[in-house]
């Protein structure tokens, strides 16, 4: 619900309407509202709710892809059985990779995004060009940016290795996508390139809400620019930055396309989503794969709930 902070839209009071007894006209409108909501809710239930429920159910069976119908109920076997997901070192490897990827890329993106947002918050003749440039990495399909970067980072013919050698930084070309020590970093690099603009956009939205009289007062008092930033700008935009980071974190935890295309055969960068799809499709283990999918869902749900609880207690702390 914290999106409101970003969009700056307080919700109209729902509680107030419920407290006052409703006029017949209002009641009729509420009924109408439900009727108009119904198609959307039905579609959402059919394409999201139902498949999610089925995934949960399938995770308790030994279904396989070749024959989904002949399955046996096996309880929690897929989770905690001797061959369950929770005892598979590959799963924990994927969990570790995904968290490292998510935390690294989100923190780098936040810092760079803040920089870019400050750059754009300046009125200058660059502004239109900057804004258009910002949308370029965002609009390019992930698969395409993965391919473009794979080409630029190619170990033999890539332009990046060419530059690094030209500048005398490396003597041997780096195998960015094949080297297990580099694969995860490479994926982080491309993700940062692709998503920093989005981060910058959200932070820019927050920056533009900072009232300009704050700056004017500071200027009159002759406060140096970096102190203005540290003590006025930063505290004011922090809530919105936290929200943006949370969205990016949830997004990064389900990373799939980038890793699938760039480093699909590398164990050192396999993500949770990759692991799930591998079990489901490549190994045809629908029951087992669904269990892994459910665990991934739980990880993300817990992260969301933890965040919601934290931000609520934070807001209460501010109020008192």
């Amino acid at each position, binding site marked *: *619900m914290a*999106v409101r902070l970003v*969009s700056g839209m307080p*919700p109209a009071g*729902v509680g107030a*309407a419920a407290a006052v007894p409703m006029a017949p006209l209002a009641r009729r409108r509420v009924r109408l*509202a*439900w009727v*108009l*909501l119904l*198609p*959307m*809710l039905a579609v*959402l239930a059919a*394409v999201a709710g*139902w*498949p999610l429920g*089925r*995934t949960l159910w*399938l995770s308790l069976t030994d279904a396989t892809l070749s024959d989904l119908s002949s399955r046996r109920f096996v309880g929690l076997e897929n989770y905690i059985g001797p061959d369950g997901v929770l005892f598979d070192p590959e799963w924990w490897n994927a969990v570790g990779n995904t968290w490292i990827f998510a935390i690294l890329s989100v923190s780098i993106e936040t810092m760079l995004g803040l920089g*870019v947002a*400050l*750059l754009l918050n*300046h009125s200058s003749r660059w502004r239109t*060009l*900057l804004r*258009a440039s*910002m*949308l*370029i*990495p965002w*609009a*390019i*399909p*992930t*698969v*395409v940016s*993965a*391919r*473009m970067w794979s*080409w630029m980072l190619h170990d*033999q*013919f890539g332009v990046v290795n060419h530059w690094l050698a030209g500048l005398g930084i490396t003597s041997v070309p780096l195998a960015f996508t094949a080297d297990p020590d580099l694969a995860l970093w490479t994926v982080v690099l491309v993700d940062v*390139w692709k*998503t920093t*603009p989005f981060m910058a*956009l959200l932070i820019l*939205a927050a920056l533009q809400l900072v009232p300009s009289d704050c700056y*004017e007062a500071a*200027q009159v008092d002759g406060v140096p620019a970096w102190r*203005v930033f540290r003590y006025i700008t930063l505290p004011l935009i922090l809530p919105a930055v936290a*929200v943006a980071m949370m969205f990016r974190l*949830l*997004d990064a*935890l*389900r990373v799939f396309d980038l890793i699938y295309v760039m480093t699909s055969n590398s164990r050192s960068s396999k993500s949770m989503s990759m692991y799930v799809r591998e079990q489901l499709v490549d190994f045809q283990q629908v029951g087992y794969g669904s269990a892994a*999918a*459910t665990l991934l*869902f739980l990880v*993300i749900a817990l992260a969301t709930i933890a965040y919601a609880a934290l931000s609520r207690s934070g807001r209460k702390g501010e109020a008192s």
Partner: protein
Amino acid sequence: MKAHLLSRGMHAWLSLLFIAVSWFPLVYAISTSFKQGSALFEPSLWPGSATLENYRALFHEQPFAHNLLNSFLVAAATVLLSLGLSLLAAWSLGRIAFRGRGLLLGTILAASMFPQVAILSGMYELVRFLGLYDHVGALCISHLVITLPFTVWVLVTFMRQLPKELEEAAWMDGLGVLTVIFRIFLPLLWPALVATGLLAFIASWNEFLFALTFTLSPDQRTVPVAIALISGASSFELPWGALMAASVIVTVPLIVLVVIFQRRIVSGLMAGAVKG
């Protein structure tokens, strides 16, 4: 006047750097897409002997035109369905106060956050049941999971910004709710619909996981899948020229849209702030 953190010169340099980094991969891809043979392996930006051979190969040796059409049809159908459904829903969620509205909005937001891979097996079963496996129709259905929560959310935000008096007058005149939505709100919501529709279009056009899993035959694939699955004789011999040509073809329409509609897109993204 805003406080200046950076000197004017620094600002210009950083701006240039940012612009260069943002555009370079695309520019380099365009350059590569015109190269052939040994020219491919020279990292010069300007192709010595430019050729359209890579583009020709793409359309003659692969069903790439078909893939483009698939991507377009799926994205267009997904956008129309999502906008239609969410326009009605947005009126209810944005203009009417009723019990459970906050919960509903929360659920819709949650639906846009959960990992797509978590519904993969359930969705596979649904697609199979509908007889849509290995058919682009499967993608229209699965892409709704991604676009619908987003379009609802953004349209609700825009719907709330419209003044209340607008509707009151219409109710006084005894107009029906559909008339109010389509004759009064729709004309005012055009800019929002364009922005939301564009964002949904891009999301569907770029979607990969469902498209990869629910289609098998080359002529049912969408472009991202086709590009991800282009391969050479071995992993060391990828046809980079053709790959970059394909990348350029998919990206250029998006870039044109983005440059034309940048203001709208930015306002839509800020209103939604849900997904990139």
